[in-house]
């Protein structure tokens, strides 16, 4: 906590909106959300090890509207965090820092995350329809 009320960076209120602001904070947000997802993976494995009834209960929860909404959120979060994570790894080795490339990659990640999510859920509904 600062002792004096001096202006501190980042001065979010005076910045023009840029794609990299969104990808940065959304990477954090999706990361936090995915951390809760790892707990669902753990619960899923425990249910599978526990009993048929426990697994059926988890399945019923996943098929409910709140379960589907959460799974849709986790799918998109994973897609975004994965694509933006790959972008961060490339930046770690020094690639993609030219301003135009930086902005372009931000858009590729954002649009790509929705494309990946749509692909996965197309598989979900294709499998459902097939059985």
């Amino acid at each position, binding site marked *: *906590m600062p002792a004096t009320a001096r202006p501190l960076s980042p001065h979010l209120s005076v910045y023009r909106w840029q794609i990299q602001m969104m990808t940065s904070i959304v990477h*954090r947000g999706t*990361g*936090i959300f*995915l*951390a809760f997802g*790892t*707990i669902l*993976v*753990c619960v899923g*494995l*425990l249910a*599978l*090890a*526990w*009993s*048929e*009834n*426990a*697994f*059926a209960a988890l399945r019923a929860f996943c098929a409910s509207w709140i379960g589907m909404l959460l799974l849709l959120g986790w*799918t998109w979060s*994973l897609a975004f965090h*994965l694509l933006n*994570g*790959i972008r*961060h*790894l490339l930046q*770690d080795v020094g690639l993609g820092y030219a301003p135009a490339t930086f902005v372009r990659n931000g858009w590729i990640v954002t649009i790509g995350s929705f494309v990946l999510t749509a692909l*996965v859920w197309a*598989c*979900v509904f294709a*499998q*459902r329809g*097939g*059985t």
Partner: protein
Amino acid sequence: MSDSLRTPMKVAQGLGSARSGAHHFMVQRITAVALIGLGLWFVWIALEMLHLDYAGARALIARPLNAVLMISFVIASFWHAQLGLQVVIEDYVHTRWLELASQIAIKFICFLGAAASVLAIIRIALASGPLGS
């Protein structure tokens, strides 16, 4: 610094050095690289499970390659989650006791989550019977 009699070396000692300071950064990247492949594999497994019954789902995880990859996936996931949440707390939680308590809680939860998941996978892989009813 100018009003202290301590040398700059004395002030810096024990606060992390170039030998260990990059460790968090490196492990976060290594688990990230592992999770690119393991994450995509996990999505495939999750989609496969959609049309399997209980016995089929157990059999899928029990296959040795899948069991090994699932153990790797949960360990890498919980490890990467702990490292990421650690940075978020370092950045936003400025009350010392609350920061310490959350850091320790997250380490415990992530370790317990990984340990429980590994036990579940081992039981499924070794075809041990259901734990409950």
